[in-house]
């Protein structure tokens, strides 16, 4: 059994799959996307393959055009607890917004998920990039990037204090004396800050992991400094190994710079694999999906990212680079920059760019044989570009079935991925330490127990 560094692999679930036209493909399970058993089956399969976690993206708004794609979202806390009940080992990572939740409610729901999954919860911390969301919460406009991150930092601090507000030893449960908990080990947090005033304590005892795993997914400048300070795993989008290496070394350096152990921060880029028995077969499969895309939808997505409306342009003409000048929030958006980088590097036609983006919204799409895909993964993993990956099947369930059946055995044969779980919590799968309560060292508190 190899003791070498191991890949961390999540299954990143989009209802029908990550390719924007996945729902139209004959093999996609579009009729099951509101059925919890579909997601329970996917999670069970991922668990049988010993993946680290399943992950769901989220945002509290509906994009304004549902004609061409299934764009709804089940609410992640209720969804994940339904999956927790059907699984026993795999991690469960949900996305929750620091802009549109209250920290007390968020802390409690993640602590609850961690309890009922016996230590498998992770929180993908987002500030919510979609401007539409603001209008669902009484705001006149989208809060600016820097303000959202300022609130996010305070939000995470409050949530952390709430998770720590019950020390691990707080539960006494002495049936004879009738003492249930030791009030001296349950603490008000008395937080007073710029955005929040929260007294605490949390009304949920400290959860199995102490704190659910902190995940972050933005790669902007604000996002990077936030991640370096708080994140234990980073989900990121890179098109080339060079960009991924640059990001990897930058974020690990930032973490070390503020005194953190860089091994306690995992970099997990997205990968969306099309797998065929030959490279030509894999490329043909990708082409099959790209042909199902609908330009009106893809152009709308591009308009949101770049601020230019290209409807009416010749799709097979060159992309009009001169029209794009990123401003405001888009200038801060790592995803918008990623699109421009593709344009500058590859000079695609508009249609080529749309197809490029249709695969996984800017994540890395590979098409090849199982060996080729395993080679790419190995390459990124061993050259300082990744600690593992968010696996983003182009369609479900077949896109994941192919990865599990053909690529995972190769990675296992190379000693790069586990054959069995060695732990039971998400922290254990990821090799992260369990944090003590920040209140545990507080000796100034009078103990109620002699």
């Amino acid at each position: 059994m190899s003791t070498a560094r191991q890949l961390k692999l999540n299954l990143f679930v989009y209802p029908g799959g990550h390719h924007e036209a996945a729902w139209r493909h004959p093999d996609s399970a579009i009729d099951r996307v509101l059925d919890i058993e579909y997601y329970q089956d996917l999670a069970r399969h991922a668990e049988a393959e010993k993946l680290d976690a399943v992950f769901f993206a989220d945002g509290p708004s509906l994009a304004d055009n549902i004609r061409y794609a299934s764009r709804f979202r089940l609410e992640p806390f209720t969804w994940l607890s339904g999956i927790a009940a059907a699984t026993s080992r795999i991690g469960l990572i949900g996305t929750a917004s620091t802009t549109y939740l209250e920290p007390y409610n968020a802390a409690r729901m993640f602590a609850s998920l961690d309890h009922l999954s016996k230590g498998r919860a992770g929180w993908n911390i987002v500030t919510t990039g979609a401007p539409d969301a603001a209008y669902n919460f009484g705001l006149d406009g989208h809060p600016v990037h820097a303000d959202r991150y300022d609130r996010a930092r305070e939000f995470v601090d409050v949530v952390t204090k709430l998770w720590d507000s019950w020390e691990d030893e707080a539960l006494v449960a002495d049936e004879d004396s009738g003492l249930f908990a030791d009030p001296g080990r349950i603490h008000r947090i008395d937080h007073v800050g710029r955005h929040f005033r929260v007294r605490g304590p949390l009304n949920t005892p400290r959860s199995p992991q102490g704190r659910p795993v902190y995940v972050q997914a933005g790669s902007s400048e604000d996002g990077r400094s936030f991640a370096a300070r708080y994140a234990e795993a980073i989900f990121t989008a890179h098109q080339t190994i060079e960009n991924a290496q640059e990001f990897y070394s930058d974020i690990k350096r930032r973490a070390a710079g503020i005194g953190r152990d860089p091994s306690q921060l995992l970099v997990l880029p997205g990968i969306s694999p099309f797998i065929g028995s030959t490279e030509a077969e894999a490329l043909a499969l990708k082409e099959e999906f790209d042909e199902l895309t609908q330009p009106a939808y893809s152009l709308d997505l591009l308009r949101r990212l770049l601020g230019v409306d290209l409807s009416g342009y010749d799709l097979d003409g060159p992309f009009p680079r001169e029209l794009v000048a990123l401003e405001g929030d888009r200038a801060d958006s790592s995803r918008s920059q990623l699109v421009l980088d593709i344009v500058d590097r590859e000079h695609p036609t508009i249609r080529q760019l749309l197809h490029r983006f249709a695969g996984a919204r800017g994540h890395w799409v590979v098409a090849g044989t199982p060996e080729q895909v395993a080679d790419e993964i190995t390459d990124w993993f061993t050259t300082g570009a990744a600690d593992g990956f968010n696996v983003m099947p182009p369609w479900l369930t077949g896109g994941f079935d192919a990865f599990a059946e053909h690529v995972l055995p190769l990675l296992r044969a190379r000693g790069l991925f586990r054959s069995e779980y060695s732990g039971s919590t998400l922290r254990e799968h990821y090799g992260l330490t369990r944090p003590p309560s920040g209140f545990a060292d507080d000796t100034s508190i009078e103990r109620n127990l002699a």
Partner: protein
Amino acid sequence: MTVIDRRKLHLNAFLMSTGHHEASWRLPESNVHANTDVRHFQRLAQIAERGKLDSIFFADSPVLFSDVGRRPAGSLEPTVLLTAIAAATERIGLIATASTTYNDPFNLARRFASVDHVSGGRAGWNVVTTAGPDAARNFGLEDQPAHRDRYERAAEFLEVAYKLWDSWDDDAAPADKASGVWGDNDKVRPIDHAGRHFTVRGPLNLPRSPQGRPLIVQAGSSEDGKDLAARYAEAVFTAQQTVEDAQEFYRDLKNRTVAVGRDPDTLKILPGIVPVIGATESEALRLERELDELIRPEYARAQLARTLRVRPEDLPLDQRLPADLPDEDEIEGAKSRYTLIVTLARREQLTVRELIGRLGGGRGHRTFTGTPEQVADALEGWFDAGAADGFNIMPAVLPSGLEAFVDHVVPILVQRGLFRSDYAGSTLREHYGLPRPVNRYGSATPEAVSA
């Protein structure tokens, strides 16, 4: 012999860690970590489903009650708990409490719609306004908003939630692979709500749920609470100590429902009862006494003092309540429970110690102690007297008290034609005999309405 066509009871199991009796956790049978153990609650739900009960229910408040020394404190967030229970059950309704004061309508409407999808149409929401300054201080406020303001916000919150739940037509997403049309933009619309408390554009980011909207439950019995219930609630949980009080409440609430133009039969009134069941009456009484002796009176007195807005030392254990307590009108917190406790103590001339014993079982809900036949008789008596459409069953000890009720009382009720022997439908609305709401915006399609 079965009596056909008798009006049927609705029975809900109100679940709480090791049971409703505050000392239940100290019994040898009790799992002291039940409050965070999902399997405990899954088992309880399965027991209730075995008895074909309408639903299970969790109370909730976003605050840690401060007497953690005395009884199990800290709980799982109930909507999260419900979907984990949904995965372990098939038919029973799933009701969770959530606060309109400390949530945003978009988030909460979405969460309950998700529970409804995940459970296949079994979700219910007990709408509360959350009394008390302690919860307020977890959400940036110094004190709770005034009672009237909380209820006004609750009414607007419900209006927003109803609009969001209707923001998708039932047939909005044909998902036609061949034509590439997933959804119909004309059948999903913004709600553009602009009110005193909320401005919400919508639409919801989730298709309309199996029940159209989750079942709406309400549990406050103050004047404001009854008005809210008359307008919105489809089931009401209430604490009533005597059949006369319960009849009065029942008549009052049904009349208010009629006054706002609703069919009174679309609102089911379920008083809470704590059944303490023994094979013989003396065995039941022995169990009740055993529990009461495990109460730690100094903690119970502190809690009573908080409810009554007095100092604990103003409540000597062996004397009656002080004569100069405030009027209900002066209370900004849980108004109706305050009145119930004071009335109970005065009517029965209870000492503080006796009052604590009475409240320890069900915090003001009525306790029925006896054999299965005696408990069934009591339920039938209230039901036939026009005091209830059913009951909120609050076992003193869990799981044993729920098992005793399901295995020994329910069969008697079934035999008397008072309760179903099997589920007739699959959604919570069907169990309660309530129609699936028509979409306020949409063109109702017959198959969707009858689904």
